[in-house]
């Protein structure tokens, strides 16, 4: 059969179908979605318990604590990004499919953000309230977290792709991704802290948005290349 005769779905359909598939898989296994959320809430609870309930102290450490907790929660969920696909062989099918692999990698990252990043952004105001964060800062927190978690889903997909077949993948993934994620953490947490003290926040938001665009345009290619290497 000539390959040109094969009915290949359009790029957009390919992207949509992989997102739909991953969302469906997440729906069937709600634990995978909820665990990072509980983790996020729990780590945020640990800090007040550790440093004491003084309101001023919580207001100062709040942005940083929330951002660190969000970063760790995102990392926790990243480990499984390609794992089940690798184990049941569907990763081979994804790599062999006629659609360009970077596009499918982008689709997996989008789906990952929808099930892990977005809920985190939605829950963050609740936790921010317990840290006595002012209302304007909560808006900034949600915006920076949204931009930051998109970047993390994309960056993390590179790490997840590089470590997918390895035995000690879990700890290694954190070691690879955390240093790359630090600029996001620095700008995210600093911007929220600035917002909490009524300062100008535009610069930090622009940086996060730029970083997000950079990750959106480059990370899928790196992920695709890494997937091919890990899965050979």
């Amino acid at each position, binding site marked *: 059969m000539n390959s040109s005769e094969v009915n290949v779905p359009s790029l957009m359909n390919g992207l949509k179908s992989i997102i739909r598939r991953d969302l469906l898989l997440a729906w069937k296994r709600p634990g995978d979605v909820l665990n990072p959320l509980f983790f996020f809430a729990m780590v945020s609870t640990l800090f007040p318990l550790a440093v004491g309930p003084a309101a001023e102290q919580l207001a100062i450490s709040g942005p940083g604590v929330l951002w660190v907790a969000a970063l760790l929660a995102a990392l926790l969920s990243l480990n499984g990004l390609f794992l089940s696909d690798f184990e049941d062989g569907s990763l081979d099918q994804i790599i062999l499919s006629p659609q360009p692999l970077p596009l499918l990698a982008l689709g997996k990252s989008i789906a990952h953000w929808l099930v892990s990043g977005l809920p985190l952004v939605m829950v963050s105001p609740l936790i921010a309230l317990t840290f006595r964060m002012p209302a304007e800062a909560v808006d900034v927190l949600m915006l920076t977290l949204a931009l930051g978690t998109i970047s993390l889903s994309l*960056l993390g997909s*590179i790490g997840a792709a590089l*470590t997918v077949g390895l035995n000690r*993948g879990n700890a290694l993934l954190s*070691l690879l991704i955390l240093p*790359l994620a630090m600029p996001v953490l620095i700008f995210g947490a600093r911007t929220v802290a600035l917002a909490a003290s009524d300062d100008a926040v535009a610069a930090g938001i622009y940086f996060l948005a730029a970083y997000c665009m950079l990750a959106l345009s480059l990370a899928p290619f790196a992920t695709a290349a890494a997937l091919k*290497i*890990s899965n*050979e």
Partner: protein
Amino acid sequence: MWKILQKLASPPHFYQLAAKIIPWLAVSALLLITYGTVAGLFFAPADYQQGDAFRIIYVHVPAAYLSMLAYSVMAISAGIGLIWRMKLAHAVAAGAAPLGAWFTFLALATGSIWGRPMWGTWWEWGDPRLTSELIMLFLYFGYMALRAAIDDTQKADRAGAILALVGAVNVPIIHFSVEWWSSLHQGPTLVREGGPAIVPAMLYPLLAMIFGFSLLFGALLLSRVRTEVLYRERRSRWVRNLLLSSEESH
């Protein structure tokens, strides 16, 4: 031109050539570092603000510079190895990582020792260059850990290359972070408009140290890559012939 490159990249040829280059690099590195150390520590005038404490720049600045240069060497050769599937380039990347990590550590350690009398603290989180140098060290660790976790050398080469290239995005952020964040760290002294803001008696030893460290890095890198090549080609004929001929000569 292409032919010369191809010949250069062939492991046996590289192995012989590197053996000839290494002594030259090592001797000139030794000369430059000796001059830089003596002139920097004994003959350069003391700083009007920092006194003699500034003299640590003769180790700190070259080490910090090399930590970035080593990363660029690692990322560029990893990229070359990935694109043109050149085995030697991967060996260079693998050899540059531990050296870069050591230079990064040296830059952090000397920066911290300098910070004690100058800032009154061993570590200043408010300083972006110190922080990004630390991130640099973690990037090296991540690269080496990924390589160590993959048993197959070729797979480790290519996975590491992707990580090195992704991490290379971080190198410009480190370099320009001085301008990005306001900080306690000194602004750029050497590369700036209006020429270097440093007297020649202080400058020349520093330049000598920077070049000396770079040559030392070159010599160490080449000898690491030689070992790496020997290990990777351990089953090939030329390595066997090399071993046989060296046994005969004894």
